[in-house]
């Protein structure tokens, strides 16, 4: 290829010596406005981790109000009004508006600024090009643009906490007409109000995800190493590939909805506003003719595939770690690939199961109930394949493996408790209760977030050349696992007792099942142990944070392949230089060739050529491979 092809990335015509040239890049170009997928991945990673902790902190605040409604929050409560404004926590007591802001922003931040940047963008950016043997992403500059778009979006979201009236408070779903009239009127600025900034911030987040998704798909299609055919891709790459398609096709309809809600708020249109609305005793002067249901359809058309955006990268991480630490090939690789593709397709036709209570009609409900139950089949196939992968393995309980094995039952609980919600008659009762909260948090909190922790511990040596400390990893793992369950398991009980998810006083004023106790506590009283578990879990993240930063400089130095893994990223130096590989990798075999018979080592890397002795018996007997 001639030198001019490098124009996209370098203005230096001697692109083949770019590695030397790279070191001449200034600090800003190298670490801040970088086009290198690894730097961008790490930027995404830090952004995601910071926002995960910030979003969790919002929830820790809410847990105070739920456990001790109306009581002043000690110590911290004195400082918060100075940060978030006097109307938020006067005398340390939380106002309802502030509680609503915290709830809406907890959801928004966790999903769109925590997990998507970390699970999809950070791991995808750092790991996918390495796993497919590519020098970088297909469009490095677009990659940089997508990070900076999410950065601007996150700043807009943060600013919204400090405008008059505070951040958005209509739930992470921003249901209209409530969201269209919230944060307007006296005491609010025209554009610089919580809900409008939420919408504007979202446009940046969507832009980022779209650019990222295009980049990922193009990279996986175009830049796979020689010999790395589709069925030799690590499962993680498949998961990211499907995730990218979900973001690519599901986000734009929400963007359309966001634009329309923005028009409703700044141009007084009535996309989502029916005629005859009365607010504060006065009829709204609007044309009407809009439909609140339209917003819900557009929102959930994204937000259901989004659920799979949250879980699929996690499943990909888990697959890599299970195969690596059980020292045997992933069980049912093809079934896993086809399951993940099926999930990707079906996730587009299940969205209205979030809307059973809207009165769409029983025919529509029946359709979505059916598709929702069908989508559980590929999910169960994936989870079963993971469990079977452990069978007969020579398991190494490393820290990543601890998180990965914990993921399996946690995700199982989350998935199975979703089935009652899929039936619209059962959901009529459970809808909007803590049961729903417990269900989806089991999937994203001890599910996805455990997968993310596992991934961080697993690929940390690749990014830094050093391992994170094992002992402190275990100190991080066990309390987190216990607290997760103390937090979310009782919520199933609270929800079945009828506790509503958005109650400001934790159900105290509604005396949820006042006479009826569950293991000695009423629905409301269960809030206290849950809250304490949440705060202890916050403390349990301190070993992780210290371990993370300490290990960057002082962790145990390891070789390029410390986990004795098989996929291509472990053939690159740690940390990989600009351009990633010393020699262009070529793949000769599948991704999980562990414990191949007749080998000295129990792992065979993808770039090891097939030996003549292997060729004579191309398919070793199954019982040998799985022994």
């Amino acid at each position, binding site marked *: 290829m001639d030198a001019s092809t490098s124009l996209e990335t*370098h203005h230096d015509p001697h692109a083949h010596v770019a590695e030397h040239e790279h070191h001449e890049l200034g600090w800003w170009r190298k670490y801040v406005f970088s086009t290198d997928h690894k730097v961008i991945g790490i930027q995404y990673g830090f952004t995601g981790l910071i926002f995960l902790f910030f979003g969790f902190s919002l929830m820790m605040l809410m847990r105070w109000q739920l456990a001790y409604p109306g009581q002043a929050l000690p110590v911290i409560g004195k400082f918060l009004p100075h940060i978030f404004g006097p109307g938020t926590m006067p005398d340390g007591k939380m106002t309802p508006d502030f509680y609503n802001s915290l709830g809406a922003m907890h959801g928004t931040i966790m999903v769109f600024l925590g997990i998507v940047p970390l699970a999809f963008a950070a791991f995808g950016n750092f790991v996918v090009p390495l796993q497919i043997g590519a*020098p970088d992403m297909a469009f490095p500059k677009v990659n940089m643009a997508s990070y900076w778009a999410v950065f601007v979006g996150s700043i807009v979201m943060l600013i919204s906490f400090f405008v008059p009236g505070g951040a958005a408070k209509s739930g992470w779903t921003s249901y209209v007409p409530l969201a269209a009239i919230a944060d307007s009127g006296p005491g609010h600025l025209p554009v610089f109000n919580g809900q409008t900034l939420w919408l504007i911030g979202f446009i940046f987040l969507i832009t980022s995800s779209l650019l990222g998704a295009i980049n990922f798909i*193009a990279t996986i299609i*175009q830049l796979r190493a020689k010999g790395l055919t589709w069925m030799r891709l690590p499962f993680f790459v498949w998961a990211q590939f499907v995730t990218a398609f979900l973001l690519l096709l599901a*986000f*734009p309809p929400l963007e359309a909805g966001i634009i329309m809600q923005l028009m409703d708020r700044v*141009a007084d249109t009535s996309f989502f506003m029916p005629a005859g609305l009365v607010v504060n005793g006065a009829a709204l002067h*609007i044309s009407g*003719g*809009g439909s609140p249901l339209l917003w819900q359809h557009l929102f959930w058309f994204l937000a259901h595939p989004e659920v799979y955006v949250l879980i699929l990268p996690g499943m990909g991480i888990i697959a890599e770690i299970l195969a690596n630490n059980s020292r045997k090939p992933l069980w049912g690789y093809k079934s896993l690939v086809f399951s993940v593709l099926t999930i990707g397709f079906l996730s587009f036709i299940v969205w209205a199961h979030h809307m059973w209570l809207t009165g769409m009609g029983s025919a529509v409900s029946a359709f979505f109930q059916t598709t929702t139950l069908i989508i559980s089949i590929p999910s169960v196939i994936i989870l079963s394949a993971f469990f079977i992968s452990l069978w007969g393995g020579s398991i190494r309980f490393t820290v990543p493996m601890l998180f990965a094995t914990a993921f399996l039952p946690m995700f199982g609980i989350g998935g199975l408790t979703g089935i009652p919600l899929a039936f619209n008659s059962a959901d009529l009762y459970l809808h909007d209760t803590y049961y729903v909260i417990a269900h989806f948090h089991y999937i994203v909190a001890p599910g996805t977030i455990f997968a993310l922790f596992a991934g961080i511990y697993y690929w940390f040596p690749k990014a830094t050349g050093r391992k994170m400390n094992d002992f402190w990893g275990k100190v991080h793992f066990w309390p987190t696992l216990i607290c997760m369950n103390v937090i979310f398991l009782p919520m199933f009980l609270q929800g079945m007792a009828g506790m509503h998810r958005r109650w400001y006083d934790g159900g105290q004023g509604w005396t949820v099942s006042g006479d009826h106790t569950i293991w000695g506590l009423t629905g409301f009283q269960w809030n206290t142990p849950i809250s304490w578990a949440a705060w202890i879990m916050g403390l349990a993240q301190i070993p992780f944070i210290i371990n993370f930063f300490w290990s960057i400089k002082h962790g145990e130095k390891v070789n390029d392949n410390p986990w004795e893994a098989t996929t291509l990223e472990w053939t690159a130096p740690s940390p990989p230089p600009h351009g990633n590989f010393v020699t262009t990798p070529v793949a000769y075999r599948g991704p999980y060739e562990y414990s191949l018979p007749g080998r000295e080592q129990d792992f065979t890397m993808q770039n090891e050529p097939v030996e003549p002795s292997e060729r004579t018996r191309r398919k070793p007997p199954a019982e040998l491979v799985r022994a």
Partner: protein
Amino acid sequence: MEIPYTVSTRPDTGLWNAKVGIWLFLASEVMLFGGLFSAYIFLRLDAPPGMWPHGLLNVPVGTMNTAILIMSSVTVVLAWAALKMRRYRAYWWYMLATILCGVIFLTVKLVYEWPQKFDHFGAYIKPEELGKYEQYLGNEHAAAKGLPPRLEITGHLHNRAALNDPNIKDYEVALDPVNADPINPAMDRPHFFYMPPTDKIAKIEKEDVQYATMFLPKHSAYFASYFTITGLHGMHVLGGVLVFIYMWLPVSKKLYQRNPEHLANRVEVAGLFWHFVDLIWIFVFPLFYLL
């Protein structure tokens, strides 16, 4: 380091990277406009009889804009073909033609069509007061012919102060032909050619009005979706024009001299986007102007 397949094709996919990228981008754009068009359908099906306006847009001007946009799609292909044949001069002229088409389209939209709407007025009459304005609405005539009821009086607002001043008790409107002569059978259907407001003035008491505004996005679900979709489409046209200007400027000639195939690829990708923008308009035009 260099990224493979930025200009040459990857043997097993037969594509270079940006071509994969633009098709993926267009897929997401289909979903974006698909969401907006679905909203249009949703709102229109929900609209009660008489609440979805017809004939408020200028059809000949819209037809002309459609022709201009289609023409620009042709010239951009010719520009790409000229590059493929390494005829830079011809490329330059075709690209200029494409840019001019885009600019004309936007000018017509922003300088003529939109402001004309902003200057037009409509008042929805309260259901119980419709009889009072029968001379302007002609609902008995409409009912006899099986036409949807007329609920709105439109035209040019003479006393614009009335919009904000609560002391002014009525709107003085120079009526549109349909309200000036509502029982004329010629007014039963929207006209192809635009007909300006007549000299006939009607006084509409504010008391009788349910909702009155200029033809802004807030006027109705119809204008809300019209301005949102054409606005978003206009931003796409603007984006395309800016990219084409960059490819037409001398800076791109340098790229042509170094690697003409690279410039041809860029034009191809931008051209695909341009065809998509054209295609969206092919949907916008009938949905808002004709149906």
